[in-house]
C-alpha cells in the first residue's frame, strides 16, 4: 500500500483518528507520518500528532485528575514556569514533549514526579547503571543513605551492636566519598 500523502513511499504507519465519532483512516510512510506530526505540532488545529499524544500524557496532571495532582494546589501557581538555564517554558515543554537541557529536570521538578509516575508505571527513581567515571561517588551516596536508614531501624529495635557495625561502615564510606572529591 502506498502512502496516501506522498503516493511514493510505502505506507508503514497506519492509524485511525476518531473525532466526534467520525472515523478517519490514515496510511502514511514514516517520513510523511513524521511530517504530519511536526506540522500539527506547529499549531495547526484539528490534526493528529504523535507529539500531542505525548502532550496529552504530560498535560494529564494539569487537569487535576484525582491521584495525579501536583503536590498541593497552591504549589501549582508558584511552580517555576521556565527553565533558568535554557529558557524553555513549561507550556512549551508540554506542547513539544521535549526538554531543552539537562537542567530542565531541576527547574520543572515540581511537575515532573506525577508525569514520570504516569509514564513509567509508577516509578520516579533510577535504579540502573551509573556513569563509571563520574557516577562512583553518587552510587556511594545512595548506599550511604540506605545504610543510615538501616542504622536508624536497628537503633529503634534497640539492636545497638548491629547499629554500631553499620555506623563504622558509614564512617568508612564517608571517608571514601571525601577522597572522591565531592
Amino acid at each position, binding site marked *: 500500500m502506498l502512502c496516501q500523502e506522498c503516493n511514493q513511499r510505502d505506507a508503514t504507519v*497506519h492509524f485511525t483518528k476518531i473525532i466526534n465519532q467520525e472515523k478517519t483512516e490514515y496510511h502514511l510512510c514514516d517520513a510523511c507520518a513524521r511530517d504530519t506530526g511536526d506540522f500539527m505540532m506547529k499549531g495547526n488545529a484539528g490534526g493528529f500528532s504523535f507529539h500531542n499524544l505525548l502532550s496529552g500524557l504530560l498535560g494529564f496532571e494539569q487537569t487535576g485528575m484525582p491521584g495525579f495532582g501536583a503536590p498541593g494546589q497552591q504549589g501549582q501557581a508558584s511552580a517555576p514556569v521556565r527553565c533558568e538555564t535554557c529558557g524553555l517554558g513549561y507550556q512549551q515543554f508540554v506542547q513539544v514533549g521535549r526538554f531543552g*537541557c539537562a537542567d530542565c529536570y531541576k527547574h520543572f521538578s515540581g511537575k515532573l514526579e506525577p508525569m514520570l509516575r504516569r509514564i513509567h508505571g509508577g516509578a520516579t527513581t533510577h535504579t540502573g547503571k551509573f*556513569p563509571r*567515571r563520574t557516577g562512583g561517588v553518587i552510587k556511594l551516596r545512595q548506599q550511604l543513605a540506605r545504610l543510615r536508614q538501616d542504622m536508624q531501624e536497628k537503633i529503634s529495635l534497640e539492636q545497638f551492636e548491629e547499629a554500631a557495625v553499620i555506623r563504622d561502615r558509614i564512617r568508612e564510606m564517608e571517608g571514601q566519598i571525601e577522597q572522591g572529591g565531592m
Partner: protein
Amino acid sequence: MAVQDFLHDASRWMREDGPHSDIVISTRIRIARNLSDLPFPILMNDSQAEEITRRVADAVFSPEFQEKSGGSYEIIPLMNVPHVDRQALVEKYLISSSLVEHARRSAVALRDDEAVSIMINEEDHLRLQVLMPGLQLGAAWELATTIDDLLEAKLNYAFDEKYGYLTACPTNVGTGIRASVMLHLPALVVTQQINRVLSALGQVGLVVRGVHGEGTDAVGNLFQLSNQITLGQSEEEIIQSLESVARKIIEHEQQARQFLMEENREVIEDRIARSFGILAYARRLDSRESMQRLSDVRLGIDLGVIKGVSQNILKELMVMTQPAFMQKYSGTELAPGERDWRRADLVRERLRMDQGHI
C-alpha cells in the same frame, strides 16, 4: 546494483544467524545519552551541534576506544551522504528516520560490520545502537554498555542521582534504554492465536507492534517487542523480562508450527508452495504481497518444506525491497507504478541465486 553486490555489503545482522534465528530475526538495543553542558537538540544551534560531533569523534578515535570497541569506526556527517543512501541506512535499520530529518547537522559513527552505530544529534545528543541477528539480548547489552563506558571515559554525560540519564523526552529518562527483538510469527497468525498471546504482554511494561502495518495486520507477520518503561528498573531487569517474554512467545510459535504440520500439513504446504511459485515467477509484486509471500516462504524453509533456499532470504529481501534499495537496484528513481515491476525482478534474481526446490 546487482543483488550480489548488495549481499556483499549487507550488515552482520543480515548475513549471520543467531540463537533462535528460526523465529527471532534480530535483537536491537538503543541507549540515549546527552552531554551535560550543552542544550538538547531542540534548542541547540549549529555550532553547538558541531561541537558535539567533534567531541564524540574525539572519543571514538581515542586509542582506548579504538582498542576495546570491537572494530574500526567511521564518522559520517549525514550532509555528505546522498539522499538515497541516507534512506538506505534507515532501511538497513542502522539509523533512524529522525536522524535523516536533521541531516543538516546530524552524523553517525558506524562500526565496519554495522553491528554498532552511534547516532549524533538525533533527538538526544547520542543514540548508541547495537544490532545483532537472532535472540541475543544479553550479548547486545554487554556490547552496548562496554561502548557506553568507553564513550563516558571521554564525555561528561547528563546524569542525575535520582532520575538517572537525562534525556530530551521523559519517556526515555533513567536507563535511556530501548531493547527490542523482531519476531517472525506466521504460525501464531495463521492459527489466530496471536491476539491472545500478545495481549498478555501489556501488564509487564512491554509493547509489541507490527513492523510493517499495525496489530494483527502486521504485514509479513513480523512483530517488534520492546520495553516501554525506562525508569525504576535496572537495565538487567528490563532485558531479563524482555528475554523471558520473548522465549514464551517463541515457545507458542513453535507449538503452533508443530500443530500446523501435524493437523494441517497439506493446507500449509499448499500455501507455502503457491507463495514460492509466485515469488519465483511473478512479474509484478507490491510491497504488501511480497512481504506476505516471503513470510510464507520463510516458514516453508523453517518447516523443511522448501529446500535449498537460505533462511536469510527474508531479512535480505525485507530490506532490499524498500524504496531506497529498489532505487539503488534499478540505478534510477522509480515511479510508484514501476517499483512493483522492479521488485518482482529483484525477488526473482535473489531466488535464482539459491537452488530452491520443494
